[in-house]
């Protein structure tokens, strides 16, 4: 009789877990798609994550954030499967001694990049934002997706990525800066903003030839490679 009770209790717990875990399918698939950049692999990664989670469900502390817990399993599975040596290292190493430091464009340019109505960026195409995100180095991409898309706390992201909170902040900052720079140059191309990075002391409107500070990531990488 006792055995029967314990086994049927386990049965209910399994079914409950199944129901709750499936609620996070969309979030998991979103992160998996951004990390693998391949829809089929993303689906496999999510399925594997959920089966692993089901198996390890005793380790989940009830009352804590299940989505964050599942994302941790997903991240570890991703790293183990595709990146045996850990995440791809960031392209931009070293301190912020970088011509794209904050304060890169004027307040009015920043204002014209966003759309007050939708609170989002001005119709910069969704596809452009996705490809900007997909091109970020993995460490930055994961931090940005977890913070900005999944709205996890720094603490939760640090647990998932297995690094200190300070590292999370720095990855976020660098990732967002790369995104903003790339989207800014896209906005320039589209004529959404006019070319005027006046804030930097090295460049003044009208003296476009004096190119000390590159405006795009591609240009930045090329310049960096050239100075090595």
């Amino acid at each position: 009789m006792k055995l029967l009770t314990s086994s049927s209790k386990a049965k209910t717990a399994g079914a409950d877990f199944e129901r709750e875990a499936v609620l996070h399918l969309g979030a998991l698939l979103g992160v998996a798609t951004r990390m693998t950049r391949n829809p089929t692999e993303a689906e496999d990664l999510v399925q594997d994550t959920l089966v692993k989670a089901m198996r390890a469900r005793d380790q989940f502390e009830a009352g804590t954030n299940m989505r964050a817990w599942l994302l941790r399993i997903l991240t570890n599975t991703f790293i183990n499967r595709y990146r045996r040596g850990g995440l791809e290292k960031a392209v931009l190493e070293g301190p912020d001694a970088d011509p794209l430091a904050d304060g890169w464009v004027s307040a009015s340019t920043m204002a014209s990049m966003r759309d007050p109505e939708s609170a989002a960026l001005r119709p910069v195409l969704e596809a452009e934002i996705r490809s900007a995100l997909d091109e970020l180095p993995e460490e930055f991409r994961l931090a940005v997706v977890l913070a900005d898309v999944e709205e996890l706390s720094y603490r939760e992201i640090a647990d998932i990525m297995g690094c200190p909170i300070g590292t999370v902040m720095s990855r976020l900052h660098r990732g967002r800066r790369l995104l903003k720079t790339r989207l800014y140059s896209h906005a320039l191309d589209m004529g959404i903003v006019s070319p005027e990075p006046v804030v930097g002391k090295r460049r003044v409107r009208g003296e476009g030839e004096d190119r000390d500070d590159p405006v795009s990531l591609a240009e930045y990488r090329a310049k960096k490679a050239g100075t090595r």
Partner: protein
Amino acid sequence: MSSPCRRAAPLLEPFGDGELAADKVAEVETHIADCACCRETLELNQSLKMSLRRAAHADAEPTTDFAERVARALSAERERQEARAARREAQDRGRPLAWRFIVPVAAAAGATLVWGALEQQGKSANDDARVSVNMATSTPGVTASLDQMVDELVSHHATSKDPDVVEPSLVNKLEPEVGVPVRVPSLQQYGLRWEGASVVPVRQLNHRAASLRYSFDGHRVTLYVYNSAQFPLRATLEPRVVRNMPVYVGSRRGYSIAAVEKRGVGYAVATDLDDRESAELVASIH
């Protein structure tokens, strides 16, 4: 950048993320009240967040097919767990597992009937092994013996971490890394519970094996699947006959190892069971 801006700049992102301590929040609020530039930076950051949130999910909505596939996988996993719980209960009532009974009988019968025939086979197998060993050791940089490779597998078995792949239907994805077909043999009838698979680099030979992990009655069982031409494990193990088949058996550091080879694919189990049980287990793989 003015100096108040310089102080505020590193606080803007944590502020926008709702991660700033209360005293700093007040500092940022005071600053942005008179600084259009920092205010705009904050606004732009928030707009970026909104855009990312919209864009990131737009091409990643789960399809109905996918949702159903996941639901099936989870139910299957739950059933596996329930079956295991049921088996445990049966065991608690003292019913022994079938294959422990089979072992002595099958091994004895097989040995007397076919030993003569297999001695020949065993010999030619050993010749093959020698060739392979020579090939392996003549490769530059490969100096270690097969014994060390067996040690590597045993260390892996003794310390193995969480498997990379737990879904049995995805295990065939390891095939390109291992170079031979990898499938999950059904060992359920022996009471083995599937746990998951990983790839194990065998450093000595610059070769990779798949490791399939099972648990059995509190024991860990690792089944290695590898290219038997590149990794002639049999050369370091003792031949034995189980169910009319040559099985190569040995032990290291208290773990027993038993290997069979089928159509160029090697299968080796590492367990802390006794070597007869390991041999029986590996012989049952089809």
